[in-house]
C-alpha cells in the first residue's frame, strides 16, 4: 500500500514517521525518569517522617509500654502519608492515623518495607527496638496519587501538544524537503517523457540543485546530450546513406542510359553493317547489269566500225586502191585492238563481279593447240620467232571451257612472241596425274625474262613489268590477269618462273575434267571447302628476298587468296590463309602472324566479330589487322581497332605500302637500346633483331642524345644507371624536346626502385621493367604496342615521320598503259 503512494507522499510519511518515533521515544524516556524521581522523593520523605515518628514513638513507649499520650494526628501535615499505626510488641494497635477521605485499613504488622508497584504505594513496618527489646512496631503507608498525577500527567499533556506540533512541523518540513528530492526526479521524468514523445533531444533539465540530484540531473543532461550527438551523427549518417542511395540511383540510371546507348550503338552498327552489305549487294547487282549493258553498248558500234572497215577494205582491194586499203587496214587493226581491250576489261570486271560463266564442253586439246598455233603464227613471224610444239602422246580429250583455254594459250603465246625476238617459243601439252587428272600446258620463251620484283606484279591487272614495256610492245596488260582468272575459274592456275635475260616459262594447269560452273560463283571458290590455303607456289623467286614476316589472310574469296598469296609471296612474306574466320583465329593463336588481312564480309562469322576477338586476346591484340572491304565505309573498321583497310578490288601497291608500315621489319626508324653493360645490350639487341626490328645502340645517355639529334628512334629502351649521362637525364632531355617528347620509352633497370622513383618514372616512361623480372615476350609485346601507337600517333597528328635515307621505299606506282 505504501508502495503505491507517490514518492513525495512516501517521503513525507517517512520523514514524519521518523520524527514521531524519535519524539515519542524521548517523551517516554522523560516520563519514566520523572516517575522514578517522584518515587525516590516519596521514599526519602517517607523515611524522614518514619525516622521522626519512630523516635517519638520509642520515647513514648519507653515511658509507658502502652504509650497513652502518643498521637499520630500530626501526620496530617504530611500529605503523602495515607495511613500510619503503632503496634505493641504483641501486635496490639496503640495508635493509628488515616488520611481523611482515604479508604484505608490498618494491616497486621509485617517485617517488610515494600513498594506496591500496582498502586504506587510505599508500605513500611519499622520495628522499634531499644537495647534489644522490642518496644513496638511503627507502620507507615505513603501514597500520593494527586501529586503523581501532577508530576506526570501535566507535563505529559504539554508534551503531547509539543509532540503533535513537532509532527506537524516535521510534516511541513518534509513537504518542503521532499521537493528538493522528488522535484528533480519529476522534472527528469517529465523531460524523459517529452524527449520520448517529441524526439526533441535539445531538452535539458534546468534546475538549481545540489548533491546527488544535481549529479543525477547533470548525468541525465549529459546523457541526453550524448544521445543528441548520437542522434545528430545518426542523422548525418542517414543523410549520407540517403545521399549515397541517391547517387546509386543516379549511377544506376546512368548505367541504364549507357546500356541503352550501347544497345542503340550496337543496333546502329548492325544497321550500318547491314546497310553496307545491302549497298555492297546492290553495287554488285548494279555492276552486273551495267556489265551486261556495256558489253552490248560497247560492242555494237565496234562491230559497225570493224564491219564497215572490212567492206571498204574489200572494195579497195578489189578496186586495186592499195593506199586506201593500207589505211583501212590500220583502222581495222586499231579497232580490233580496241575491241580486244574492251573485251578484256569486260571479262575482268565479270570475273571480279563473279559473273564469269564457264561453258564446259568435251574437246581434244591437240586440236586447240593446232588452232592456236596457226592463229599465232603471223605474230611469231613478226619478231622472227620459231614456234615449237611438244605434245605428249595419248593426250586424249578433256572437259573444260574450250574458248577460255584457247584464249589463255593465245594470250601466253602472244605475250611470248611480243617479248622475244629471233628466239624459240615452245608450247607443250602434257597429261599429268597427281592428286587428280590434270593437263599441263607450258609456254616457254627465250626472251628478256623478268626480275623477281617484276614477277610479283605480273598477274596484276594493268601491271606490265615496266611501264615502258607497254609503249614498246603494246597490249593491255590485262591478258595475264585474265588468263590466270580463267584458269582458276576452271579449278587450275597459271604460274610463272623466269630468269631475267634468259626467258620465262608460264605453266597452265587445268583439270582434265572441269566441274561445271556452279551458278554465278567462281567455280574454284565454290568447289573447295574452307581449308588453309598453302603458301603460294612461286617459291623460286620468293626465296631470293629477305623474310619480311608472316601474313595471315582471312577471306572467303579464293581469288583474293590466290592473288594475295602470289603478290605477298613474291614480296617476301610468308603467307598463311583460311576462308573461315574462326579457323583464322585458331591459326593466329597457334602461330601469331605479324599482320592479318581480314575480309569484312565472311559467310559464317563476320569480319567485325573476328576483329573484336583478335583485339580481345592479349596475345593477338597487338597484331595489325588490315581490313578488306567492298565499300568505302572504312571508318567502321578503323573504329573497331583495325590498323588500315583496302577496298576490293585490292590495289597491290596500297596493300604493300600498308604492310610496310605495319611490319616491324619495315620500320624505317630504329629502336634505340641505351645500355652501358655490353653483354646486356647484346642480349636485347639480338632479341630485337631476331624479330626484325631495326636497332641502334648507345653506350650511355650522352651518346643516346647525340644519336637522337640526327635520327630520332621510334622507341627507346633505356637503362637508368649509366656513366656520363644516366637514364633520368635522358628522360629529362627527351621530355623537354618537342620532337622527342612522344617517343615511347621503356625503362629497363636493375635498381630497386622506391615508390617515389617508380611514380616519377611512370609519368615519363611508358613502361618500367625491373631487370630479371620480365619475360622477353612481355618486352617484345611492349615494344610492338608502343611503336605501333607511336606510328599511329605520328601519322594522325601529321608530324612528319622521320624517314632516313632508304632505298627500300615502296615501288613506284605503275601508270596504266
Amino acid at each position, binding site marked *: 500500500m505504501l508502495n503505491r503512494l507517490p514518492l513525495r507522499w512516501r517521503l513525507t510519511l517517512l520523514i514524519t514517521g521518523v520524527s514521531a518515533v524519535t519524539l515519542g521515544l524521548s517523551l517516554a524516556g522523560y516520563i519514566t525518569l520523572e516517575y522514578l524521581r517522584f518515587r525516590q522523593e516519596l521514599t526519602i520523605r517517607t523515611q524522614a517522617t518514619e525516622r521522626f515518628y519512630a523516635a517519638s514513638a520509642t520515647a513514648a513507649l519507653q515511658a509507658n509500654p502502652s504509650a497513652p499520650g502518643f498521637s499520630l494526628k500530626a501526620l496530617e501535615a504530611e500529605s503523602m502519608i495515607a495511613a500510619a499505626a503503632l503496634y505493641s510488641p504483641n501486635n496490639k494497635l496503640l495508635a493509628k492515623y488515616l488520611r481523611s477521605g482515604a479508604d484505608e485499613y490498618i494491616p497486621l504488622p509485617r517485617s517488610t518495607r515494600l513498594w506496591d508497584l500496582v498502586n504506587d504505594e510505599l508500605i513500611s513496618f519499622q520495628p522499634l527496638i531499644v537495647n534489644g527489646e522490642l518496644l513496638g512496631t511503627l507502620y507507615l503507608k505513603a501514597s500520593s496519587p494527586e501529586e503523581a498525577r501532577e508530576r506526570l500527567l501535566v507535563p505529559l499533556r504539554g508534551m503531547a501538544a509539543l509532540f503533535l506540533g513537532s509532527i506537524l512541523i516535521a510534516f511541513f518540513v518534509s513537504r518542503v524537503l521532499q521537493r528538493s528530492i522528488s522535484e528533480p526526479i519529476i522534472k527528469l521524468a517529465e523531460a524523459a517523457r517529452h524527449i520520448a514523445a517529441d524526439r526533441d533531444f535539445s531538452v535539458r533539465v534546468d534546475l538549481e540543485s545540489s548533491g546527488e540530484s544535481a549529479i543525477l540531473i547533470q548525468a541525465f543532461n549529459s546523457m541526453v546530450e550524448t544521445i543528441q550527438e548520437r542522434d545528430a551523427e545518426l542523422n548525418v549518417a542517414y543523410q549520407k546513406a540517403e545521399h549515397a542511395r541517391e547517387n546509386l540511383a543516379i549511377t544506376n540510371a546512368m548505367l541504364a542510359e549507357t546500356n541503352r546507348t550501347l544497345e542503340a550503338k550496337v543496333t546502329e552498327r548492325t544497321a550500318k553493317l547491314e546497310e553496307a552489305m545491302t549497298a555492297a549487294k546492290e553495287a554488285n547487282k548494279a555492276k552486273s547489269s551495267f556489265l551486261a549493258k556495256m*558489253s*552490248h553498248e560497247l*560492242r*555494237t558500234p*565496234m*562491230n*559497225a566500225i*570493224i*564491219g*564497215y572497215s*572490212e*567492206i571498204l577494205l*574489200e572494195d579497195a582491194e578489189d578496186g586495186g586502191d592499195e593506199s586506201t586499203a593500207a589505211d583501212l587496214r590500220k583502222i581495222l587493226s586499231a579497232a580490233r585492238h580496241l*575491241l580486244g581491250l574492251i*573485251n578484256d576489261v569486260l*571479262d575482268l570486271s565479270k570475273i571480279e563481279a563473279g559473273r564469269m*560463266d*564457264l*561453258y564446259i564442253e568435251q574437246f581434244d586439246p591437240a586440236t586447240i593447240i593446232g588452232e592456236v598455233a596457226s592463229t599465232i603464227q603471223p605474230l611469231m613471224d613478226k619478231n622472227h620467232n620459231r614456234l615449237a610444239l611438244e605434245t605428249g602422246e595419248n593426250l586424249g580429250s578433256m572437259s573444260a*571451257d574450250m*574458248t577460255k583455254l584457247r584464249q589463255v594459250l593465245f594470250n601466253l603465246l602472244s605475250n611470248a612472241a611480243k617479248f622475244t625476238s629471233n628466239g624459240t617459243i615452245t608450247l607443250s601439252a602434257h597429261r599429268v596425274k597427281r592428286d587428280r587428272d590434270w593437263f599441263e600446258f607450258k609456254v616457254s620463251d627465250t626472251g628478256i625474262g623478268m626480275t623477281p620484283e617484276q614477277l610479283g606484279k605480273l598477274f596484276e591487272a594493268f601491271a606490265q613489268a615496266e611501264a615502258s614495256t607497254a609503249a614498246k610492245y603494246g597490249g593491255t596488260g590485262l591478258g595475264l590477269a585474265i588468263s590466270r582468272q580463267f584458269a582458276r575459274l576452271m579449278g587450275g592456275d597459271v604460274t610463272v618462273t623466269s630468269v631475267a635475260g634468259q626467258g620465262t616459262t608460264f605453266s597452265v594447269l587445268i583439270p582434265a575434267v572441269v566441274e561445271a560452273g556452279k551458278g554465278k560463283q567462281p567455280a574454284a571458290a565454290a568447289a573447295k571447302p574452307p581449308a588453309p590455303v598453302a603458301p603460294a607456289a612461286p617459291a623460286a623467286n620468293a626465296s631470293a628476298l629477305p623474310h619480311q614476316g608472316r601474313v595471315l589472310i582471312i577471306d572467303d574469296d579464293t581469288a583474293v587468296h590466290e592473288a594475295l598469296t602470289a603478290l605477298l609471296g613474291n614480296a617476301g612474306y610468308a603467307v598463311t590463309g583460311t576462308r573461315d574466320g574462326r579457323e583464322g583465329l585458331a591459326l593466329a593463336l597457334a602461330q601469331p602472324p605479324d599482320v592479318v588481312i581480314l575480309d569484312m564480309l565472311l559467310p559464317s562469322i563476320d569480319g567485325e566479330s573476328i576483329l573484336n576477338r583478335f583485339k580481345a586476346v592479349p596475345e593477338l591484340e597487338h597484331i595489325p589487322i588490315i581490313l578488306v572491304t567492298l565499300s568505302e565505309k572504312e571508318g567502321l573498321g578503323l573504329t573497331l581497332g583495325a590498323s588500315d583497310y583496302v577496298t576490293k578490288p585490292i590495289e597491290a601497291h596500297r596493300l604493300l605500302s600498308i604492310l610496310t608500315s605495319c611490319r616491324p621489319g619495315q620500320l624505317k626508324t630504329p629502336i634505340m637500346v641505351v645500355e652501358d653493360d655490353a653483354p646486356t645490350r647484346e642480349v636485347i639487341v639480338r632479341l630485337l633483331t631476331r624479330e626484325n626490328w631495326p636497332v641502334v645502340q648507345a653506350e650511355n645517355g650522352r651518346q643516346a642524345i647525340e644519336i637522337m639529334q640526327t635520327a630520332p628512334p621510334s622507341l627507346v629502351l633505356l637503362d637508368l644507371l649509366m656513366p656520363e649521362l644516366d637514364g633520368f637525364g635522358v628522360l629529362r632531355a627527351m621530355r623537354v624536346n618537342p620532337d622527342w617528347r612522344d617517343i615511347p620509352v621503356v625503362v629497363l633497370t636493375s635498381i630497386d626502385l622506391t615508390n617515389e622513383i617508380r611514380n616519377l618514372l611512370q609519368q615519363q616512361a611508358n613502361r618500367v621493367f625491373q631487370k630479371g623480372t620480365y619475360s622477353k615476350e612481355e618486352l617484345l609485346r611492349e615494344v610492338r604496342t608502343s611503336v605501333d601507337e607511336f606510328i599511329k600517333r605520328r601519322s594522325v597528328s601529321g608530324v612528319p615521320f622521320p624517314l632516313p635515307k632508304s632505298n627500300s621505299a615502296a615501288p613506284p606506282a605503275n601508270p596504266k598503259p
Partner: protein
Amino acid sequence: MPKILLVEDNEMNRDMLSRRLQKRGYTVLIAVDGQPGVDLARTEQPDLILMDMSLPGISGWDASRALKADPATVAIPIIALTAHAMAEDRAKALAAGCNEFETKPVDLNALLAKIEALLPKPAA
C-alpha cells in the same frame, strides 16, 4: 543462188552483213524482228537463217523455237548470232533449236564457212 534470211534489228549490222553476203552471191532476205522473221521464213522458205538473238519484239530464241516447232520451217538451218562469249546465250541458242552459232562482231570468214557447211549440198 542460196537464199539467206537475215533477222537483225540493228540497221548497220543488217546493212553490213547483207551487203557482204550479197557480194558473195547470196540472195539476202531481211527481217527486222522475230515475228516478221518467222513469217518471212514460212512464206519465202529460205535455205538458211541468220538469227540475231537480242531482238526487240520476239527474241531470237523464241523465234528459233517457233521455227523449229513448225513443220514448214523445221528443216531450215539457223545460225544464231550471239553476243561475245556469253556461254549462257550460246547454250540457250542451241537449246532453242539453232544449228550453229557465231559470236558478234562477226568474223565473216568463219561465218561463211559455217554457212557453207549448213547449206544443203547440191540441191540447186
